């Protein structure tokens, strides 16, 4: 056994990556010893443009373009911050519609992550199955908002489109189908022998490490850490619609997959509860004035906690918009998990984090 190490780069352009990120692995034989990561390839300068180029009522649609997968969480967080500054109260119906879309977005994002993890582990058939079933969710998102990915559904004061009884029927029917499929995957992920070789016991993060390294989102919940912003905030009535914390103890890739699947099923329950008891009323209230003062808002994106800090000075231009994204907080935990694993498992481990680099670099 030689002590010589080899440097293997992963990225910035790689088949297993959706977005440019570069990891430099230093390997001794098959084992990874140190990891160096570089995440700044997609930095565009959105925070700066929010204070110089756009007026405050347009920024809700600009910050949605920070990330395509959690677009709804970004625009919701910004809008909630502005509503806090303007001091208006929005209607109950628009609050429930916001949660509905937030949870639909979470379902499709988690399904994408699961399918991508399977593809990177070499299970192409599972990738195709999950991506095919994901279209059921995309269909109802298109019905509800008019677009598949960038919804532009939330505006300051409410939401932009109303829901009709046909749409809600279609949503319930499709979500029932998705739930059956998700239960099927649950069986597959727990019992399939060849998937267990790739997922069980690989890329494990212990509870102490998750706490020490400040992991958030499904990554932390898979290690048994009870953190979910939906449990802690009061702007939106998450406890009324049946939110339940999903955790697991193992902390490996399999645990992350199961946490995501459980969250999908919980989100479907929440959507059904919302559609059952949707209150009547307007979907939009006009809020007047210009934002003045500071506001901090937190929301649970599909990947973890998202924080917005907004500072206004009473004019149409804001003074500062600060975005802290979930993947950025998780990078120390990512680097820690890679150490000691085989290089061959690196793409699957990376996909199981569900990294969002365009969020991170903004």
């Amino acid at each position, binding site marked *: 056994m030689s002590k010589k190490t080899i440097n293997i780069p992963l990225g910035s352009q790689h088949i297993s990556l959706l*977005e440019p990120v570069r990891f430099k692995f230093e390997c001794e034989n098959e084992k990874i010893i140190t990891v160096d990561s570089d995440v700044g*390839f997609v930095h565009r300068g959105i925070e700066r443009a929010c204070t110089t180029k756009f007026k405050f009522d347009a920024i809700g649609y600009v910050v949605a373009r920070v990330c395509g997968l959690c677009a709804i969480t970004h625009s919701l967080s910004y809008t909630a911050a502005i509503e806090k500054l303007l001091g208006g109260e929005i209607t109950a119906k628009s609050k429930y519609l916001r949660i509905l879309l937030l949870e639909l977005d979470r379902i499709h994002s988690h399904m994408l992550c699961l399918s991508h993890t399977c593809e990177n582990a070499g299970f192409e058939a599972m990738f*195709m199955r999950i991506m095919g079933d994901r279209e059921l969710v*995309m269909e109802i998102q298109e019905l509800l908002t008019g677009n598949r990915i960038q919804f532009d559904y939330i505006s300051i004061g409410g939401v932009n489109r109303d829901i009709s009884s046909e749409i809600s029927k279609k949503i319930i029917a499709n979500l029932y189908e998705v739930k059956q499929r998700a239960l099927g995957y649950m069986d597959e992920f727990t019992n399939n022998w060849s998937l267990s070789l790739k997922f069980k016991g690989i890329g494990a993060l212990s509870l102490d490490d998750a706490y020490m390294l400040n992991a958030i989102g499904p990554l932390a919940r898979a290690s048994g850490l009870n953190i979910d912003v939906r449990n802690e905030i009061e702007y939106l009535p998450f406890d009324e619609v049946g939110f339940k914390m999903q955790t697991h103890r193992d902390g490996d890739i399999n645990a992350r997959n199961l946490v995501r699947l459980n969250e999908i099923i919980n989100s479907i329950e929440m959507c059904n509860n919302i559609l059952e008891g949707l209150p009547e009323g307007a979907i939009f209230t006009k809020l007047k004035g210009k934002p003045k003062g500071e506001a901090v808002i937190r929301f649970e994106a599909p990947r973890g906690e998202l924080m917005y800090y907004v500072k206004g000075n009473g004019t149409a231009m804001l003074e500062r918009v600060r975005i802290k994204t979930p993947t950025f907080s998780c990078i120390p935990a990512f680097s820690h998990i890679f150490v000691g694993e085989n290089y061959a498992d690196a793409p699957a481990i990376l996909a199981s984090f569900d990294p969002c680099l365009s969020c991170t670099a903004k």
Partner: protein
Amino acid sequence: MFNLKKYRKKSPWILHYNAGSCNGCDIEILASLAPKYDLERFGVVNTGNPKQSDIFLVTGPVTLRSRERLVELYMQMPEPKVVVAVGSCSCTGGVFRDMYNVEDGVDRYIPVDVYIPGCAVSPELIIDGLVQGLEILEQKTKEMEKPLKLFKESTCEEGIVNRRDTALKVGKIDEKN
């Protein structure tokens, strides 16, 4: 004998690079490869290797750090190749236009054959654009097969023979005369 020209049209391989997009178009590309839209019925395979690919899908306005890699990937692809700009921001810059770290659009750096607008692009449009790209690929292949002909004398300056601009494709000479 294995006939490359015949099969290139039947099975174009794509290379995908994200030059600073918001992920929206990238997951729509994945979705169009998935069973519902099924781009693979045209023989499309997603490769990570520029040296084996025919169609280059670029998403995103080009950020300052990704432009070198973009040009590098373009240069490594063999001729004939087609560049498809996917999404409003890769066509013109979109919402990111005039931000400080962004070059507005892909066509500042590499020649683009097909522009697909939309934020985010729908999979139907991606399929449409790729099929149009296939026609362009076929045209380019035919263009490459045409022989070159010298239409003027090479110049000689200070003992160095300069053959610059002496050769043209056969069809173009007829237009010129």
